[in-house]
């Protein structure tokens, strides 16, 4: 960990996040269209809101990126006029922090599917903690609460874990990740050819 993130890293992270911020807003309307059923079908797609962190981290592979991405995505969503208002900011910080902690626990050296899934679960945990404070979901009857939690965790693993991982794999194929990742020393050695 050198002297923190460079301007390029920050700007790229924030732009990824803002792109997700737009998706989040659109996602909100899908979410509301399934929500009134009450049986927590909506929770299955809740995991989408945790995606920015893992995606940004897997693209840039640098410390602090996941947290920044979630905060930035939430701010983007907020500025674009999310009906959730300032809550998204609070949630964003917590979700990002939880994901960041997972990446940190592995010293920012792991970029596989498992780590993405772990980060997704962590973000989900963070959101549940927030929900206990804000939504008073503890007051739901037990069977309903369980349904709620299971649905949300499954959704998170799918969207923020598996989907995020494969999204970055496809992005890598477009060559864009080379722009933001460090160049290997092997490339420098090849300068001495002939």
């Amino acid at each position: 960990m050198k002297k923190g993130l460079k301007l390029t890293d920050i700007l790229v992270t924030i732009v990824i996040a803002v792109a997700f911020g737009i998706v989040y807003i659109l996602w909100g309307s899908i979410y509301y269209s399934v929500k009134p059923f009450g049986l927590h079908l909506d929770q299955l797609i809740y995991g989408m809101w945790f995606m920015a962190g893992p995606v940004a981290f897997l693209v840039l592979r640098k410390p602090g990126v996941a947290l920044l991405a979630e905060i930035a995505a939430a701010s983007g969503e907020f500025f674009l006029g999310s009906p959730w208002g300032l809550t998204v900011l609070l949630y964003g910080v917590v979700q990002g922090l939880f994901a960041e902690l997972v990446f940190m626990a592995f010293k920012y050296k792991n970029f596989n599917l498992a780590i993405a899934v772990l980060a997704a679960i962590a973000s989900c945990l963070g959101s549940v903690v927030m929900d206990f404070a804000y939504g008073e979901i503890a007051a739901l009857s037990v069977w309903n609460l369980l349904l709620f939690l299971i649905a949300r965790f499954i959704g998170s693993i799918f969207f923020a874990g598996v989907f995020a991982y494969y999204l970055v794999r496809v992005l890598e194929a477009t060559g864009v990740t080379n722009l933001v990742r460090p160049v290997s020393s092997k490339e420098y050695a090849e300068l001495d050819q002939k």
Partner: protein
Amino acid sequence: MNFAGAETWLHKVNPSLKLGILMVLCLVALFIHDSNYMMNVTIGVLLLFLCFSGHSIKHMLFLFVPFCFIFISTSSAMIFFGKGETLWFKWGLISVTEESFMRGLLVGFRAMLFAALGLTFSLTTRPVNLFYSLMQQVKLKPKYAYSFMAALRLIPIMMEEFHMIRNAMKVRGFARSTGIKAIYFKLKAYSIPLLSGSIRRAHRIAVAMEAKRFTDTAHRTYYYEYGFSRKDQVFILYFIIVLLAGFYLAIHFPLLPK
């Protein structure tokens, strides 16, 4: 966001202070457990929003639709499935109790309050002003602040790019395929170029910013300078009054059953 509205005194409140106060209010709202009090505070904030956001009534009504949606959707789950003693109504899995009903209203009003606070802020604050103020009052590092501003500038460009990609797909003969597999391909065909294009653009802009001698030192001057004024005092005072008056009214003139 659309800034077509007129400027009001709310626009002139120090942006960092405004954000700070609204955040504090969000936190305070987490500790309000009385539906009457919550309702009063929500109404107080809505009044501020309606009277001083500077936007036309039509525009605000349009923004209001999601508010109602939030209210209904957030409270319904709690009302129909919440725990409680005093049973009002039961049908299959659905059981409406007095406690769950009141809690449903509480949660609904809280969601509405948050939405109102958020809109009040985003409709009366230009992001650029907020980030300048954050750099000055909260000492946010310039590299973060300018990155945010540059990224927000990119949003309309991304929208434009989305149309372009769609058109390009048409030209290349993409639109013809249909079916479930085509949906997957379409999703991929839009999201990947959009995302990778945005990353490339972000990288270019960062390079251009560094070429303009941008460094992350604390020493810089500011084109927009923010301090504090009378309006800030009025703003703080307004919320103190709302909180106190709301509390008083909730105790002495409750509108909802206790």
